[in-house]
């Protein structure tokens, strides 16, 4: 990446097209009682890029994602999405704008099978009326089959065919994370928010996950915002990185820039990661 990027976008070193601003956070401040989780932070996310958010534990990263997905309402600041200022919105309305996410502490629906979990990702695309659903006739059945086909594609893509019918409660951690990703993808979002998608994985699994993330970004052109503590992953995957500490933004730029920022090293990295 380079600073020559214009409003219209640019092309990355490996040939991906990055567009203009998709989402912009302006002067966000979020407080919980006395705790200030986010303090006057602004940054943007461009169309098609992979944007990482890093920072020490408790810095306010997850809170930031929660602000983006509408679960927390910041006391101050504005959120702009696709060129419009987003008014106060319920989380499910935000989801309908094309923002999907995964959660730090896996939030799958434990009582449902993998397939059903992923299908929930497509809920907003299913429009059959109540009567049709009750009688399983016409639209409901057609829609179910059509959406099932889409979901099967995602299942193939993430290589989880064999656990399709397993209740998610029984799955090991890593697979749960993958199912969560699948559920988010099923919504065919424009912006995908990933909160520590690789926590608790070994290298091999992280490699798999990286591959999925890159493929999603590449094949569907999905914009991705990602929180991750594995610096290897962050530095390798992301186009730009925001660094937070104690609710403040202490760095923003390309992985290289961030990696060499002394404040970031002190607050977060400890040693410089090569």
């Amino acid at each position, binding site marked *: 990446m380079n600073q020559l990027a214009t409003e219209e976008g640019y092309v990355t070193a490996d040939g991906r097209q990055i567009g203009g601003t998709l989402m912009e956070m302006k002067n966000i401040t979020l407080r919980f009682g006395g705790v200030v989780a986010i303090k006057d932070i602004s940054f943007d996310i461009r169309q098609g890029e992979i944007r990482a958010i890093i920072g020490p534990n408790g810095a306010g990263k997850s809170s930031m994602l929660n602000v983006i997905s509408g*679960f927390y309402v910041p006391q101050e600041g504005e959120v702009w999405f696709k060129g419009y200022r987003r008014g106060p919105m319920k989380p499910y309305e935000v989801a309908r704008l094309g923002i999907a996410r995964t959660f730090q502490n896996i*939030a799958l629906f434990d009582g449902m099978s993998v397939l059903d979990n992923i299908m929930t990702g497509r809920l907003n695309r299913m429009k059959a009326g109540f009567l049709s659903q009750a009688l399983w006739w016409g639209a409901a059945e057609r829609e179910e089959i059509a959406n099932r086909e889409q979901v099967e594609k995602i299942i193939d893509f993430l290589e989880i065919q064999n656990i399709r019918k397993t209740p998610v409660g029984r799955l090991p951690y890593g697979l749960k994370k993958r199912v969560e990703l699948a559920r988010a993808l099923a919504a065919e979002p424009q912006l995908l928010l990933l909160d520590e998608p690789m926590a608790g994985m070994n290298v091999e699994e992280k490699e798999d996950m990286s591959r999925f993330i890159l493929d999603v970004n590449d094949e569907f052109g999905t914009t991705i915002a990602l929180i991750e503590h594995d610096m290897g992953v962050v530095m390798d995957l992301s186009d730009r990185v925001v660094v937070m500490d104690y609710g403040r933004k202490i760095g923003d730029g390309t992985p290289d820039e961030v990696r060499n920022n002394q404040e970031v090293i002190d607050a977060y990295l400890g040693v410089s990661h090569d």
Partner: protein
Amino acid sequence: MDQLVFAAEVFLNGLMTGVMYALVALGFVLIFKASGVFNYAQGVLALFAALTLVGIQQGQVPFAHLINAMLGTHISSFGWTVPALLAILLTAGVMVLLAFLIEKLVLQHLVGQEPIILFMATIGLAYFLEGLGDVMWGADIKTLDVGLPQGISDGIEAVTGEWFGYGFFIDRLDIWATIIAALLVAALVAFSQYTKQGRAMRAVADDHQAALSVGISLRFIWVMVWSIAGFVALVAGIMWGTKSGVQFSLSLIALKALPVLMLGGFTSIPGAIIGGLIIGVGEKLFEFLIGPMVGGATENWFAYVLALLFLVFRPQGLFGERIIERV
């Protein structure tokens, strides 16, 4: 003016009734706090305690009816009477034993289950105890007398009569209930906030697995809490039993305690008292002011509706622990 004085009397009586409700609610709170178990059996526990107390006091032979039916004998009583205080102590002992058995036979096997399952188990327990109480002590109505005074307090009537020209009715039993409840609450609050066991009890409520992993013995905590709850049930049973006799319907006071609980918060000991007072006053005043307009008998539902309205504004009750909503 008259109306105002009457309302004041109703208000006071509401407070007193509220205390009586709170006595039952306290047992719920303890168990909920310590194990996340919504103990529907609390009312039956009070009934069982009262039945046992009367049985011991009057020297009844337990299971007499069953024995007679099986062996064709005609036993019913040992023929002695036990002093009230000793009988209360013995009954407390029985409640501890019961707590131990409940832990051993029920709770131990349900560690880590969902709350609703535990709730159902306590309903099963309620059925069981109800049947057991009947088989052990017989289903007839019994009179409970441990020497608590009852009836209108003449002093208060005289004093208020002088002040307002209308003597207030306050039941002496209610006054006693208030004193005892205050003592109980103070003791329980101190216990849960400031002792190691109290802390462990709250830890267990949050996460059984984690509590196990740090070496808290669920068994010990549960036996302890159920014993305390059994004791609270005994106190409630004595109060209500003195008031309206000891028989099946005593177990239904649990239903009057639920809105109290809801309003005060399931996890707050002071909440049980405050909730009780609000519910007591609320339902009595409503019955007094609005009741005549809608045909009366509003008390059964009013308490619930009142609690519901409070909950809409504070979903965890007035003093309940904040419901943690995070992702």
